[in-house]
C-alpha cells in the first residue's frame, strides 16, 4: 500500500501523486507477483480444474482408458446403493464429529492458557515453551508414543488409572483419545497466536474499563474478546480446516477401528484415490468435502465479522 503517496492539495482535495508512470508501476507489481501466480496456477488452479475433469470419469491413472461417466461419481455418493456412498458418508461423519469435538477445545483451552501467560507470570517464557513443545513433534512420533501409552491392556495410562479403558479400539473412547491427543499436540500453536493477539490489546482499554467499574469478567467480554476478534477469526478458521483435515492420528493410532468408525474423510479419500486407483470417485469426494469446508469457512467469517463498525 505504500506505493501511493497521498497529499492534501491547497484546496484540501485528496490527490494521488505518482512517482512513476502508472503503467510501469503496475507492470512492476505484476512482475513481483508473477512467481507466486505461476506457482498458484500450477499447483492450485490446474489441479483443481483437472480434478473436476477427473471427477467426471472412471479414472485409474495406470490404465489406458478413462471412460467419461458424467456426474455419476457425484450421484453415486448421494444414492443409497452407490458403491462408496455408505463408507464415504461414514467417514464424513467421523470427520464432522472430530471437528465438533476438537475445535471448541482447541479454541477455549489455548485462550485460557494465553490469558494466564499474558499475566506477568514468572518464567512465562518457559511455560510458553512447554505448551508449544509437542507441536514440533511429527504425527508419526506422537502417534507411536500415544499408542504405547494408551494400549488398553499394557499402556501406562490404564495402569495409572487402574482401569481397562479401550482407549484406541472402541468408541467413544477412541474419539476421546484422538481429540485429547490432538489438543495436547496442537494447542501450542493457537496459544502462541492468541497470546500475540492479547499483547496487541492496548492496556489503556483495560484501564478505561476498570475506571468505568468493569470487573474481570466484564472487561474480558467487552475488551479482550472484541480486541481478539481478527485473531480469533484466523485461529478458528485454521483450526476448523486443520481438524477437518485429520488423517495421521486415525491412520496410525486407531487404524479406523472399531470397524471403520474412526476412518476420517481424508483417510478414506486418500485410500480410494491413491491406494485403490479410484481417482474419479475420490476426486468427486474431494469436491464435496471442499464445498462443505468452503461453506463452513465463509460462515465462520460472516459470524465473526465485526458488526460494530
Amino acid at each position, binding site marked *: 500500500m505504500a506505493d501511493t503517496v497521498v497529499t492534501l492539495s491547497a484546496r484540501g482535495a485528496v490527490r494521488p501523486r505518482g512517482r512513476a508512470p502508472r503503467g510501469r508501476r503496475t507492470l512492476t507489481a505484476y512482475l513481483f507477483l508473477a512467481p507466486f501466480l505461476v506457482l498458484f496456477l500450477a499447483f492450485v488452479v490446474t489441479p483443481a480444474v483437472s480434478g473436476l475433469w*477427473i471427477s467426471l470419469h472412471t479414472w485409474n491413472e495406470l490404465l*489406458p482408458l478413462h471412460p467419461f461417466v458424467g456426474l455419476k461419481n457425484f450421484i453415486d455418493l448421494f444414492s443409497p446403493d452407490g458403491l462408496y456412498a455408505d463408507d464415504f458418508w461414514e467417514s464424513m461423519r467421523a470427520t464432522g464429529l472430530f471437528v465438533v469435538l476438537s475445535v471448541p477445545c482447541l479454541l477455549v483451552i489455548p485462550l485460557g492458557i494465553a490469558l494466564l501467560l499474558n499475566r506477568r507470570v514468572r518464567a512465562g517464557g518457559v511455560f510458553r515453551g512447554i505448551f508449544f513443545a509437542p507441536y514440533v513433534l511429527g504425527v508419526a512420533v506422537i502417534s507411536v508414543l500415544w499408542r504405547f501409552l494408551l494400549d*488398553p*491392556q*499394557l499402556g501406562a495410562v490404564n495402569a495409572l488409572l487402574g482401569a481397562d479403558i479401550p482407549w484406541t479400539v472402541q468408541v467413544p473412547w477412541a474419539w476421546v483419545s484422538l481429540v485429547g491427543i490432538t489438543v495436547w499436540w*496442537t494447542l501450542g*500453536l493457537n496459544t502462541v497466536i492468541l497470546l500475540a493477539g492479547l499483547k496487541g490489546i492496548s492496556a489503556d482499554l483495560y484501564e478505561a474499563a476498570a475506571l468505568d467499574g468493569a470487573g474481570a469478567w466484564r472487561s474480558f467480554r467487552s475488551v479482550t474478546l472484541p480486541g481478539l476478534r481478527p485473531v480469533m477469526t484466523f485461529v478458528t478458521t485454521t483450526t476448523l480446516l486443520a481438524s477437518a483435515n485429520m488423517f495421521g492420528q486415525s491412520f496410525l493410532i486407531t*487404524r479406523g477401528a472399531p470397524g471403520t468408525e474412526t476412518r476420517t474423510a481424508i483417510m478414506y479419500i486418500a485410500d480410494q*484415490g491413491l491406494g485403490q486407483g479410484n481417482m474419479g470417485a*475420490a476426486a468427486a469426494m474431494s469436491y464435496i468435502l471442499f464445498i462443505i469446508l468452503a461453506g463452513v469457512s465463509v460462515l465462520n467469517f460472516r459470524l465473526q465479522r465485526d458488526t460494530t463498525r
Partner: protein
Amino acid sequence: MKRPLRGIIAAVAIVGLGASIAACSSSDAPSTGSVDAGADYSGPDVTITFWNGWTGGAAPTIVPQLVKKFNDEHPTITVKEQAIEWADIASKMPLAIKSGKGPDVAVLHGDDIATYGAQGLLLDAGDVVKNLGYSADDFPGGLLDNAQYKGVQYGVPWSVTPLGLYVNNDVLESAGLSTTDLPTDAASYTAALDALKKAGVQGEWVDGFVFTGTFEFESLLWQFGGDLFNDDVSKATFNSKAGVQALTWMRDLVDKGYSPANVAQDGNFNALVGGKTAFNWNGVWQTTNEALQSVDHQAVAVPQIGTQQAVWSSSTHWVFPANKGQDPNKSAAAAAFVKWMNDNSLGWADTGELPAQNSIREDPALLTAHPELKVFLDELDYAHYETVAPGITTAVAEITTAVNEAVLGKKSPQDALDDAAKKADAILQQNAATYGG
C-alpha cells in the same frame, strides 16, 4: 493436520495429485513384452537397478552384501540396489515404470503381481523361468502358480513367510504346562487355554487388525475348509459356514475369557514378550524380533483348529518391470541376477523370511544356522498364499474390517462377514470392470 491453511486446499491437493499422476500416464495400451534370458548373461556391460522394500531388520546389511558379491563375480553387470519402504514402492513404482524410470528388477508381494500384470507393468517372465530351469517342483506347492495372472508368469518366487504359534515358555511353566508337549489341535489347544485361565493367564490375546488377526482368521477359514474367494475371484466366499466358524472361534477366545477384550494392534505380541500371555499367532519374521530374544520362547506350527491343516503365508517374487523403452540387455542381466540371488539365498533366512527355492531350504546348512525355522519349513506343505487377482488387496481389506468388528464385539461374526462380503463383491465387480476381468 497442523499447518494453517493447509486444510482449505486439502481436497484440492488430493485432486491435484490425481492430475499430476494423470499427466504422467501414457495412453499406450498395456502390452506384454517378455524377458528372454538365462542364468548366464553374455551381452554388453550394463548397469541395472533393483528396487526392494527391505528397509528393516537384517535385510539392509544382507542385501548390499549379496549385491556386492554378485557384482564382483559378474564383471559385465553392475546391480544398483535401492531399498524403499513397501508403501512407497506401491505408490511410486507403477508410475515410474509407466514413465520409463522404474527399476530393471524388483521384488513384489504375491497379492500385487496380478495388479501390476493387469496394468501391463511387468514383462512376461515365463521364458526366464524356463531358461533358468525352474519348474513348479522347485518351489513350495502352488507358489510358482501364485505369480501367474491369466496364464502369464510374471514373477519368480523369492521368499515365503508363514504364520506360526509363538510360545512363551516361562508362562506355560508357571501354569504347570509342558513346554515340549505343545498343543496341535483344537482339543489340546483349548485344554492349554483352560489350564492357563485357571492359573490366571489369558492364554491367547486375539486382535482384530491386519497384524495378525486377519492372518489368523484366514488360516482358520482354510482349516475349516473354506476359502476367501471363489475360483475365478468374482465373489467373496469368506462368509461361508467355514468363515463363520473361524471368526466365531476367535470371538469365543474373548467370550470364554482366554483373551482380554479390546486388544490393540501388536498388543498381543507385546503381551507375549512381556510374559502376560502364552500364545501368539504371528509370522516367521518375528523369529528375528530383538525384544523376543530376551524371552524364553519357541515357535511351533499353528494348531489345527478346523478339519484340515492350513496356514496363512505371504510370498515375495522377483519381477521384471516393463519400463517404457526397456533395454532387453538389462532385463537379461536382471534374469541372471535373479538366478544368482535365488541360488545364494541361504543367508536370507537371517532376515526371518524363508527362501522360496526348495534346494536352498532343503540344504542342511539352513537348519544348522536357524533351527527355529524347522517348524515353519514343515508348514509349507499346507500353506496358502495370497489370492491372485488385480486390485485384490482392496477386497481383502474388507476382511480385516469384519475381523475387527467381530473381535471387538461390534457385530456378530456372521453379520460382520456378510457385510464385508457384500462390499468385497462390489469391489471385485468394480475391479473386473477396471482391469477387464
